[in-house]
């Protein structure tokens, strides 16, 4: 009897202690480690997932793609034809190390993102200048371009290393995507005082690797390279409305996709992303939850190198023809169209190994977007295709191909580049096979390259190195302009080096307009123009596939495919 009583007391004691000791730990499986927990320095999905929790931004994108205030009190006050922004931030916000977050930190973070040698996110701030502090919690900036006429001959835009310097030579211009871009991770706020101190005591070089300080809902705890990153709950988070019962989040690196899947099936991890479609089948059968992005968040394309004499357009002396007009009856243009009509993207969608039907054939470069999606196909190239087999039309392809000179009919004529080991290699293989079947010549040879080499190739577009590229781009609004069309930096569709005057005018117009129907129409018209000359064949629109255990709720996927874990609950 006594023993029993003692037992009960002991049990009760335990029960009361357990909640203190037992922590709720969420384990997220990722294929790679994050790269660096310093927002402007790198951005890939595993890095995003972690940085989203450590840092705050002035604005965030909701899961349905709307811009909502984060650290900012409200949406910005935009004046002077959309060229002047005034933003007020919340007071009383603290960084994880206790430093207060003020407007100085915001300006410092932007300055760093815009001008630091290693920043990968300069484009966010590329049009920003004249950034001014109004008071401890308010600041102002303008958007515009570098104006050559204002600057001395020896001063280039890239020589300007601060927003003040820019103010001397910039002229105002509206940039409709600026607000969207402030939701990007590269616009996260870091602590000025902390980083400046680290600069002095020599610990700055390890920032984002062995330590990181943000103001987000979770704090950096530790990073075991190649193994895991651990974050702990920030109990003093400024936004008390978030609801999570998770004390600790471990981002576990599991390189091999099949191992990642097994770990999920064995319930060793709670969440995984970038699930291969085949694995999604198995996960569903085993009772896991499949999470999809809200709509199609990217499209895969086959790009033509427009500097290539075979599929692009060059002058008689071999230099690229960039006059803004394309001769659509030239042999190289016909070869582009012959390839377009040879490709049946449904093979990519239906292949269990590639999409396993979790995606769809697309006829245009943007699928589910606020802007640029062509609603009325009338009078556009869209009329030639359908959503089942794309633009596939073997008769037309053969006809066009037959009219070409023999020099364009040699096996292995076209060198196609794709990221090594990626799904794009598989898609390239499908395309190669289809072109070979329809045209009767094995035109395409595929080369797999590492990411750095891919970047080099995309930026140089050397026609001796590649003619075709299979790749993808996200199509959320701000990306659409930057990555798909590369609005103002270099030229349209920058990897293909495509440029037509007509499309460029529409894009410039779209870029300068505030969000609204007019902006939408401008981008639609731009896309119609691009589809005419066809520097890219749109292949498929994709959804991001992630999986979660049944006991996890409150997880959302951002439009760019990252996990949003602010409100995650684990039962």
């Amino acid at each position: 009897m006594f023993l029993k009583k003692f037992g009960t007391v002991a049990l009760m004691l335990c029960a009361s202690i357990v909640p203190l000791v037992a922590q709720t730990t969420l384990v997220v499986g990722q294929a790679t480690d994050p790269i660096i927990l310093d927002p402007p320095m790198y951005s890939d999905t595993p890095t995003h997932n972690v940085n989203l929790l450590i840092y705050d931004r002035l604005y965030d994108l909701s899961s349905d793609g709307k811009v909502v205030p984060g650290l900012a009190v409200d949406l910005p006050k935009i004046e002077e034809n959309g060229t002047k922004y005034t933003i007020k931030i919340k007071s009383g916000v603290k960084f994880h190390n206790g430093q207060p977050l003020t407007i100085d930190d915001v300006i410092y973070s932007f300055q760093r993102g815009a001008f630091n040698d290693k920043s990968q996110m300069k484009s966010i701030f590329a049009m920003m200048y004249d950034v001014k502090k109004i008071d401890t919690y308010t600041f102002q900036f303008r958007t515009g371009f570098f104006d050559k006429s204002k600057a001395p001959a020896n001063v280039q835009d890239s020589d300007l290393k601060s927003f003040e310097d820019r103010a001397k030579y910039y002229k105002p211009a509206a940039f409709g995507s600026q607000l969207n871009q402030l939701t990007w991770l590269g616009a996260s706020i870091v602590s000025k005082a902390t980083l400046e101190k680290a600069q002095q005591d020599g610990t700055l070089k390890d920032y984002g690797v062995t330590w990181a300080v943000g103001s987000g809902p979770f704090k950096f705890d530790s990073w075991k390279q190649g193994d895991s990153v651990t974050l702990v709950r920030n109990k003093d988070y400024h936004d008390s409305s978030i609801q999570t019962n998770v004390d600790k989040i471990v981002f576990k690196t599991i390189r091999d996709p099949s191992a990642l899947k097994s770990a999920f099936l064995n319930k060793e991890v709670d969440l995984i992303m970038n699930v291969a479609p085949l694995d999604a089948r198995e996960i569903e059968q085993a009772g896991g939850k499949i999470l999809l992005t809200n709509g199609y968040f990217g499209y895969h394309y086959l790009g033509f190198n427009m500097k290539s004499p075979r599929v692009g357009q060059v002058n008689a002396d071999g230099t690229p023809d960039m006059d803004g007009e394309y001769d659509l009856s030239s042999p190289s243009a016909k070869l582009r169209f012959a390839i377009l009509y040879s490709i049946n993207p449904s093979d990519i969608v239906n292949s269990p190994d590639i999409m396993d039907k979790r995606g769809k054939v697309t006829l245009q470069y943007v699928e589910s977007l606020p802007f640029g999606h062509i609603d009325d196909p009338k009078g556009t190239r869209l009329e030639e295709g359908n959503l089942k087999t794309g633009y596939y039309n073997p008769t037309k392809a053969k006809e066009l191909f037959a009219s070409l000179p023999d020099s364009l009919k040699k096996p292995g004529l076209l060198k196609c580049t794709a990221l090594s080991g990626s799904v794009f290699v598989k898609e390239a293989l499908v395309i190669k096979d289809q072109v070979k079947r329809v045209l009767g010549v094995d035109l395409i040879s595929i080369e797999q390259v590492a990411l750095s080499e891919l970047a080099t190739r995309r930026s140089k577009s050397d026609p001796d190195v590649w003619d075709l590229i299979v790749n993808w781009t996200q199509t959320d609004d701000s990306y659409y302009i930057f990555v798909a069309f590369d609005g103002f930096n270099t030229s349209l569709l920058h990897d293909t080096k495509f440029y037509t005057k007509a499309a460029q005018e529409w894009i410039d117009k779209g870029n300068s307009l505030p969000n609204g129907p007019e902006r939408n129409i401008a981008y639609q018209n731009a896309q119609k123009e691009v589809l005419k000359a066809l520097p890219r064949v749109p292949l498929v629109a994709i959804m991001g596939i992630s999986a979660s255990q049944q006991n996890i709720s409150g997880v959302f996927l951002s439009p760019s495919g990252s996990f949003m874990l602010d409100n995650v609950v684990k039962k």
Partner: protein
Amino acid sequence: MIRYIARRLLMIIPVLIGVTFIVFSLTYISPGDPARMILPQDATDADIAHMRHLMGLDESFLMQYVHFLFGFKSPSEDSSFSYKGLLALDLGRSYVSNRPVFKTILERFPNTALLSLFALVLSVLLSIPAGIISATHQYSPSDMVVSVLSLLGLSMPAFWLGMILIWIFSVKLRIFPSLANPNNLKSLVLPVITLATMNTAVQARMTRSSMLEIIRQDYIRTARAKGLDEKKVIRKHALNNALIPVVTVIGLQVGQLLVGAVLTETVFSYPGIGTIMVDAIQRKDTPQILASVVFVAIVFALVNLVVDIVYAFIDPRIKAQYEGMTKGK
């Protein structure tokens, strides 16, 4: 003996210099611009040229090799571009993870060493008894079994064996995880078997044939003729002599284990030096490739050195021979 060891140590220096030179040249000629890796896709040519300057990539091949050996001081304020050179075990930071490359290697090398050690122990425990039984019972069924198994083991690609083991024991039977991790002993079972198979096969064959050779030799016959118990003959006379070549093989196998680890670790996603290397190669992370290949070559050379020295200790004949000779083997 000390002179021999010193000589052997001196001999690996030119070898290591050669190795570093070859590996460095290979990475130097490889396409792809590291400056572009660090910069965003929309970086201008001027940005890239500037970054190349900060990284010391605009200098001549020879200068870059000198930097590689003795260190590089970047003109950038950002000290993360500078490094102290191979001699100080500092080749700067990975282009991908931004961490000092040797730090990553030294963190992960113990994992590879652990895996290799388990595999080595397993293979020795299996192969030597198997080889002895096989030799002392030549042409018996057990000899056949050992011979056939060791031939199979020798012919199986390790990465395939690993995947087959995953299929049977992780996917079908769900006994062992398919993902190996140094903190979980159970998860090491499959990779250790995978890694040990080839070595076990080689060592078993070696033990068998050197046992056979010695059994046939005169002094063993004499011992037998004296009427000594067969077991005693094997244990006392044959085994000691037969083990000398076996020890050498085991030594050489340690090096092979490091190589096998590259494939085994890839199959089991094990966080060792093999996966560092494969990752680095796939991502063109030049400092990491350089550091890991050179590191493995150094370990490999040191292991061979130790084996040679141990060998000289075990076998007095070799020792005498080495000491008498002026030229290498």
